[in-house]
């Protein structure tokens, strides 16, 4: 990737909202971060009998979508709906529609498994004679499990008519939405974009990661010398991205750069030297017109698997040395997979806004083979530039640079 001639135009996050196992809305999430209160609990998802911890969003089983959204009814869209209701996000979008028009706002969402839980349930209810799936499922597949369901749902909920798509590149999905939206804005395809991601718990990922022997039996311990795997979580997050001068106020948080790459190595193991990760991070710095020394904090992908944390450390150390503070926030939220990108981009935004850095929760003793400056305790100090890393299956990597204007 050649170095861009000039940095990209910063894109202001003029509104944002987040729901994780730590609570509903950015207030609840930042309070949990400051109080070092994890959202991980022993797995009580449906009838899954797995000895692991999960970051489940409470209350998702207790309500239904309204009659006008009935066809979208599934756990993933209920979580998507809950996310939209927090932090005045719907009002901010309504105001943006007033400013730009409903057809000038793009919707770019990320998810890895969409509403697959519906399909799992449908397969348990196949017709005993014909083997066919129940009609309540087949008639709603488009609105629940199909990969575009989330994009369709968000667009319908907020009443938008601009371009839309769902990016699904496993764990990097809702980090890459920032890159696509940035390109759409630069190309003039839209005047603003809602980016975000929603991924919800399901048996596919619980049993799939269990089969890969990547689930920890305790709450995940990123960067700890005894870390033994990840904890799954679920989350919904959205940000309204705008490039206009009007929202480019001093003190606002903006996307300054993005970097996208692949490992070209293996479907589920990271490249041993972190080649793809290095490429993504460098590209994000280049697009932001920043040097590694300009970065105050790195929110690591930090899944707490042996391989990820060690390879990510190699990549980060090779670029930043032991300069910036590094931490993983997965000990709070669990790994929200396709929603991890937006979750951690918004946690980075909260850190920039409030002037603090979360120390890695559950990391009792930093793995001595890691060389980056891994933070264990929270620090209160103003920061101006953050890098957020997300790496996923298929060797798909994305790094974002966020900063205070």
């Amino acid at each position, binding site marked *: 990737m050649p170095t861009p001639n000039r940095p990209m135009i910063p894109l202001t996050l003029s509104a944002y909202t987040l729901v994780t196992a730590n609570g509903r809305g950015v207030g609840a999430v930042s309070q949990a971060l400051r109080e070092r209160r994890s959202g991980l609990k022993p797995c009580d998802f449906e009838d899954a009998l797995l000895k692991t911890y999960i970051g489940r969003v409470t209350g998702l089983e207790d309500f239904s979508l309204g009659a006008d959204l009935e066809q979208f009814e599934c756990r993933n869209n209920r979580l998507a709906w809950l996310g939209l209701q927090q932090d005045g996000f719907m009002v901010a979008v309504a105001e943006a529609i007033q400013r730009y028009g409903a057809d000038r706002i793009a919707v770019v969402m990320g998810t890895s498994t969409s509403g697959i839980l519906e399909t799992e349930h449908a397969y348990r209810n196949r017709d005993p004679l014909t083997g066919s799936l129940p009609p309540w499922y087949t008639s709603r597949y488009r609105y629940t499990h199909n*990969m575009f369901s989330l994009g*369709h749902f968000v667009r319908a909920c907020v009443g938008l008519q601009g371009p839309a798509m769902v990016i699904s590149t496993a764990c990097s999905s809702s980090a890459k939405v920032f890159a696509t939206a940035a390109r759409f804005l630069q*190309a003039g395809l839209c005047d603003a974009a809602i980016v975000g991601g929603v991924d919800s718990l399901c048996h*596919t990922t619980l049993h799939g990661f269990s089969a890969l022997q990547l689930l920890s039996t305790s709450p995940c311990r990123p960067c700890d010398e005894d870390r033994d795997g990840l904890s799954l979580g679920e989350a919904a997050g959205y940000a309204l991205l705008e490039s206009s001068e009007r929202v480019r106020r001093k003190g606002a948080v903006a996307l300054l750069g993005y970097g996208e*790459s692949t*490992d*070209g190595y293996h479907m589920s193991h990271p490249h041993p030297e972190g080649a793809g990760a290095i490429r993504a991070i460098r590209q994000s710095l280049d697009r932001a017109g920043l040097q590694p020394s300009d970065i105050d904090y790195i929110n690591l992908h930090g899944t707490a698997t042996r391989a990820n944390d060690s390879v990510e450390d190699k990549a980060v150390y090779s670029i930043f040395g032991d300069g910036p503070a590094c931490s993983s926030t997965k000990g709070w939220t669990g790994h929200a997979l396709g929603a991890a990108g937006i979750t951690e981009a918004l946690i980075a935004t909260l850190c920039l806004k409030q002037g603090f850095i979360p120390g890695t929760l559950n990391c009792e003793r930093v793995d001595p083979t890691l060389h980056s400056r891994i933070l264990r305790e929270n620090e209160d100090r103003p920061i101006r530039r953050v890098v957020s890393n997300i790496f996923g*299956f298929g060797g*798909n990597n994305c790094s974002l640079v966020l900063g205070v204007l």
Partner: protein
Amino acid sequence: MQIGILGVGLLAAGLEGWPTGRAVLAGTRPFDPCTVPDPDASLLPANERRRSSDCVRWAVQVAQEAMAQSGLDPREVATVFASSGGEMEVLDKLCRALATTERVVSPTLFHQSVHNTAAGYWGIATSCQQSSTALSCYDDSCAAGLLEAVTYACVEERPVLFVAYDLPAPAPLNGARPIASAFATALVITPSMIQVLATADVTLTAAAGRDVSHAFSQEFERLRLDNPAARLLPVLQALAMERRATIHLNLLDDQRLIVEVESCRN
């Protein structure tokens, strides 16, 4: 947005490979969709090919065909893979396993279930470390993917491989998403207009209405409507006929991608 097209890949029953498909689409060869192709996707390492789904082999086959024609080094080319449903065959197997009491899931099957499986295997086969995006927009996945690819080429000023593919889901999942025939196609898109097969001017406009395709042969209409990836057929036919054409691709109910294709052969 102005782009050049450097290579084309095509695979469907009766349209097996671009040289054959081009002749069929240009009307110089009869359309005979009786035999379903079984692509070997020779670029995939033997191990990966044995384990990979039909979806992966179809997507990689058209990708390698388009890439070979482009003459570009695949390691230098970013990718955009568009599919409505992705790995439906793998999802069927997973959901069957999850419906048993034991719920034993194969780890290989699990990592092959992601929407970016074909994109990931392409990257592994070519050692490509460029950006790779996999996306969906239900029936309009092809238009959304083309928009993403063209925008990438123009904004990042880099070549990009665009692949669109959807395969019929196995029973009983086909009850949820009935697609009758498989279709995969690929375009190598470049921001440069030099030494290209064709150029295209792509614009996005807010407009209601269904796909409009001028002078598109009706014999391919059923295929075009059956498979989301086949929505590119009018563009492919214009490329095959080496003639100027304006094609409207529907993007959701209220946006439209207008593709003005012009051949550079003459």
